[in-house]
């Protein structure tokens, strides 16, 4: 077992633990923090099913962003849907046998990498060129884009430029899952790609990537518009009522 294999195997265990543990903690925190007042941005749905639809439109189509700014929407959609297809395609490295639908989307997943990188470059361009967006950007905002572009480019290079030993890679990944370690091919592009991905996983729960769980907990989007019909009372607010006549 080479040192590289051991380092990367441990790296991915640590990264996975931080990603899962960190997100679980964050979600627990969001879930247990009360929303004491009804603050849906209206017009808002008046039923629970309506809220599910609103949230679905928000998450699947970026409805509010579409109303807001067509350029950000376009670049954001290219990136996110590209990433979604790319991630789905990557399931083939985690499953044996490969599921049929993963097999079917393979060609789309391959080219989605270009959409993903194009979207990221579009967003980065805005961050550099639009004075309003440049003003609100911290170094971490640029680094996050660099990280994602790096992941996209290194990954796409292995698909379209210089193939890696994908059979051994899959053995390595399955080995991680079943605790039966297999050697990792010492391919430069692959090592870069994997290191960047592990970095992303580690950074996820302590960065703005928390918008992923956050959107589902956003009271302006997930609340039902029924304050007159149903009394809404947070536990700490109910405490205040003890003294009331």
């Amino acid at each position, binding site marked *: 077992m080479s040192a590289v294999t051991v380092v990367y195997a441990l790296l991915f265990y640590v990264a996975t633990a931080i990603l899962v543990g960190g997100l679980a903690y*964050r979600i627990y925190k*969001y879930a247990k*923090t*009360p*929303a*004491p*007042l*009804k*603050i849906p*941005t*209206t*017009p*808002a749905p*008046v039923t629970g099913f309506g809220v599910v639809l609103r949230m679905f439109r*928000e998450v699947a189509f*970026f409805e*509010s*962003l579409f*109303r*807001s*700014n067509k350029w*950000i929407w376009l670049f*954001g959609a290219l990136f996110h849907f590209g990433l979604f297809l790319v991630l789905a395609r990557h399931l083939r490295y985690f499953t044996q046998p490969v599921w049929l639908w993963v097999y079917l989307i393979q060609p789309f997943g391959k080219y989605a990498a270009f959409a993903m990188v194009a979207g990221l470059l579009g967003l980065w361009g*805005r*961050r550099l060129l*639009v*004075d*309003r*967006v440049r*003003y*609100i*950007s*911290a*170094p*971490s905002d640029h*680094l996050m884009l660099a990280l994602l572009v790096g992941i996209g480019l290194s990954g796409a290079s292995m698909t379209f430029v210089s193939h890696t030993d994908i059979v051994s890679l899959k053995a390595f990944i399955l080995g991680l899952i079943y605790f039966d370690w297999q050697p990792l091919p010492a391919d430069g592009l692959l090592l870069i790609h994997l290191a960047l991905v592990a970095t992303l996983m580690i950074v996820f729960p*302590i*960065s*703005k990537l*928390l*918008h992923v769980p*956050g*959107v589902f*907990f*956003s*009271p*302006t*989007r997930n609340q039902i*518009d029924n*304050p*007159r*019909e149903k*009394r*809404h*009372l*947070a536990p*700490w*607010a109910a405490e*205040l009522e003890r003294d*009331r006549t």
Partner: protein
Amino acid sequence: MADFEVPDLKTYPRLPHIHEGVMAHSKPFLAKPEMQADLGFPGELIDNWQEVALDKMGELLGKYRSFQVYLDSCVKCGACTDKCHYFLGTTDPKNMPVARQDLLRKVYRRYFTFAGKYFPKLVGAVDLTKDVLDEWYSYFHQCSQCRRCSVFCPYGIDTAEISMAAREILDSVGLGQKYCNEIIGKVFKIGNNLGLPGPALKDTLEGLEEDVLDDTGVEVRYPLDEKGAEVLLITPSADFFAEPHVDGLIGYGKVFHQAGISWTMSSYASEAANFGMFIGSYENMRKVALRIRKAALDLGVKRIVFGECGHAWRVAYSFLNTLAGPFDFLDPRYPVPQHICEFTWDLIQRGALTLDKSANDDMVVTFHDSCNVARASRMGDKPGGQFHIPREIIKATCNHFVDMPIDTIHDSTFCCGGGGGLLTDDLMELRVKGAMPRMRALKQVAEENGVTHMAAICAICKSQFTKVIPYYGFTMDQIVSVHQLVSNAIVLGAKQ
């Protein structure tokens, strides 16, 4: 006319470039120690303010999911950067919603997140210094909590939630805003924002009865503290005397008169507005709201109806049940509370009012959606009723109605520029510049469609517009109340 430059509607850019620091000087007067004391806040900046402010922030993070989630979730995409009327009118980048939030977020990151504790420069985290605190005081009093940014944010991040939290933190260390805190104190002591005691109210209302009798020959009543009335009307105190507010109040009385429904106002709860919301204080907001519950119980009414007021309607519609409910002692056939527009529209639909539209033929009317009615409440039983019902009332009372451009109405409406506790003379520059987007839309329909009047359903909007509209070449009397239009058109007396 002004010691600052009023935006020229003809040449002012649609999407201005940023100019750093141009509104850094803007800040409202500080509350005096005795005003702070009335609300349970320290009288002036305390010695250990930094520790107390951070403790307060931690407390709020545990009490408000919105605050916690919104501080974490922003990705700095820029979608909100051109949505705030104060940014559009001032070009100060700290008036972009995300930048305003960041004033607080960068401190949150420094003390409450891993990245900010260990890599502050990387994520733009900063220590809470006196300069930062002063910047909070300035820029969190340049937000009218209108929620326009939250409509356009892909995560629904509402800057109003952040600015309310910031103002609560400022209050907790002794930096209160004079305008809001003095007013809340008046409500606790006297019953309304303007400090009008019961006898003065009674006098004013009797005067109104005489005026209406002179005008119409009909005895329309404006009752105060009458036990056993069917409806308790809660209306902003500006309705008692300010123009054009009072014309709206006259209208409510005529509607009740024609409907044959007994009603009363209360001297104890003679204020619809609840400034507790502006300062983000649940406790103070609750205390103000409980006065309405007490008035309803004491007077033995069966329904509660709210007059034309924007943020008031948000607190009434969205929060009253939470703060002061349950209202199981009222008639369950009606929503609690009801908006006067819901009440009037219901009567119009049932044919209970005779309306002569020609009475308003001297006007071409447009309608300003008040921000908090549009984006934080509802009227009627369908989403969007808050847009349609007031417009239906206007169309039922006027022959000439024109809407302003679509990106400036409904839930895209622009705040008047004076909401959220900013309707004070010490913020005049901000108010004038913040009104720019609405003024531009009004100018467009005035020129293209001959619009002569803009109707509103909010006391703050009406006061703000009558004050700032002359800066843009209009006249004060071009602002009207929706129930003023009703008042003009309603035919009093037996139904023909």
